[in-house]
């Protein structure tokens, strides 16, 4: 893994992260928001992998495993919230759950 410059990998990670962030902010469908979150987590994971490969260190791989575990936990909680949202509001529009305004 010496051929590919680190900038390419990091650039891809940043692009993925921004794509996920954009999806998170513009989407109103909760399911798509959860998917955007997954994309952002994977972007972070990719950044760790690229950095680990660049410095020949195992830390990046370890962090990626942690992120995968985190993503799994997050997905299960997120889907639980999604079900609750649907149960309470009969919709999965995230803006419906905006009752805690000042």
């Amino acid at each position, binding site marked *: 893994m010496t051929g590919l410059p680190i900038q390419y990998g990091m650039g891809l990670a940043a692009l993925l992260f921004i794509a996920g962030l954009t999806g*998170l902010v513009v989407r109103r469908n909760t399911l798509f*928001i959860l998917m955007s979150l997954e994309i952002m987590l994977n972007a972070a994971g990719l950044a760790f992998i690229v950095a680990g490969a660049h410095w020949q260190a195992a830390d990046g791989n370890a962090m990626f495993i942690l992120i995968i575990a985190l993503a799994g936990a997050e997905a299960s909680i997120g889907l639980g919230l999604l079900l609750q949202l649907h149960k309470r509001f009969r919709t999965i529009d995230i*803006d419906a759950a*905006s*009752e805690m*305004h*000042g």
Partner: protein
Amino acid sequence: MSLLVLTLIFPLAGAIALSLFPRMADNAARTIGAASVGLAAVVTALVMVFWGANGGYPFVQTLWQWIAVGDFHVNFGLYLDGLSITMMGVITGVGFLIHLFAAWYMVHDLEGSPGMARFFAYMNLFIVAMLLLVLGDNLLLLYLGWEGVGLCSYLLIGYYYQTPANAWAAFKAFIITRIGDVFLAIGLFLLYTVFGTLNIQTLLHQAPQVWAQGDAMANVAALLILLGACGKSAQLPLQTWLADAMAGPTPVSALIHAATMVTAGVYLIARMHGIFEIAPAIQELVGVIGGVTLLIAGLAATAQTDIKRVIAYSTMSQIGYMFLALGVGAWQAAIFHLMIHAFFKSLLFLTAGSVIIACHHEQNIFKMGGLRKTLKLDYWLMIIGGSALSALPLVTAGFYSKDAILWDAVANGHGVLWLFGLIGAFITSIYTFRMIFIVFHGEEKTHAHAGHGIPHHVPLIILAVLSTFVGAMIHQPLDGVLPSGAVEGHFWIELVFEVISSVVALVGLGMAAALFLGKRQLIAQATQDGPGRNTWLFFNSALGFDWLYDKVFVQPFLFVARGHRRDWIETIVNVVPGLASAGNSGLSAVQSGRLRWYAMVMFAGAAVLLAVLMFG
């Protein structure tokens, strides 16, 4: 004589105990409340015995130095002489009987709602403040007691605070008496500026040496003291609060608004008699105020429908007699009438309380009627109290005290004031027996349940006995404290005047019987409409003083206040709340509750932080 302090300590301990444990059982609260004043009464009796055995000389007990600022020294000192011991006897003696009656009354009055401890805490505190008022050896300590009784009066008038009208009545009493108190405070400042001390005996000793007879400053000082006394004693022009003060429980009306607090003004003027003697114009004014007030209050009492308001106006009227006595220089007769009035007026109030409870909290005399058969005891008590109030000759205590005032007035050459007093006596007979006839005679309109039990019977019967000639035989040790003011007249001349006032009282009784003892058609027709109706309304509103004060003082004040609602100070002051309000609306707009908005703000914040870290 360290016993003297105990008269203060017992009620104070009672008040503190009742305040610290407001949730104690009602029976415990009643026992503590009545027993603490009972102990004070016992100690007062012992003090009287020892004081008399030691020759009855004035006695000073300095407890500690209260205030010491530069040259200004005030001691917490108690002063005992014939006048203060008489007042102590009335306060603790009559006070204890009323507390005992209240132990019966409040059980029936509260009926499950809490507040027994609160009631007795205020009542005990009142006794402490009233004793301080009469025992203080300097004017500042007297003023502490003066304000203390005012506070307790406010708290007890507004005792049933759930009803807004009662809270307003308490406000009214507090504010109007406060107007008088401000004048009294200015009078205190004036006396201190001139004499450099507030010690009453020193003041009375120095006043004739510093001020010539009729000195302008002496007149001002006496006038300020008089205005203070007018506020507390509900005399013209500060008399409007007393009738509304009947919103409190009936024992409160008996203790504070009949027997003790409202007579504090009489005590104050009698205590400061040395100042008034060198200000004869103001002393004359005292008599005129008393004479006019006794007529106004008497007329108002003839057109009331609430039993307590009838008695309240009669109290104002009787205090008018005391002021009249002070004005004509009959100092001892004023204090004598003060004591006798405390007996028969608390008897009338407590009996009225008994009748009110018996008629299930009904206070309108026209809804009672015919209670003579069901409430035999109350009927006779009311007859005794009413006779004493009307000063029916020979058998009642009121006859001896009121006659002394009238005789002293005429003997000292105040024929007009004597006439005022005589007309007042006539009106007194009419309204007193009007009340009795309407309540106890005629057809029965309600079913009454007579009160029973020792706390109900004992105070009423003792007060009834004291309201007869027995009470008039009590000797007051006032010689040497107050000038007697009594003029020894020729026996036959004195007898003629006594017969005149007796006949006037009896004619008033006869007229009340003629008007109110039958079908009452004459009065009913006369007051149905037209001028008769208007006169009735005029008397019913106590000659319209509330209306007058509203137009002269309250409305102009509100007008000025409204005019200044939007001035430039208001604009400047409003900047601060405006800023706070704008900040609030700005921040609450940020809290939109939208998750996506929060996410964006969070990332924007993270981006800014990152930028600062990288390029900062």
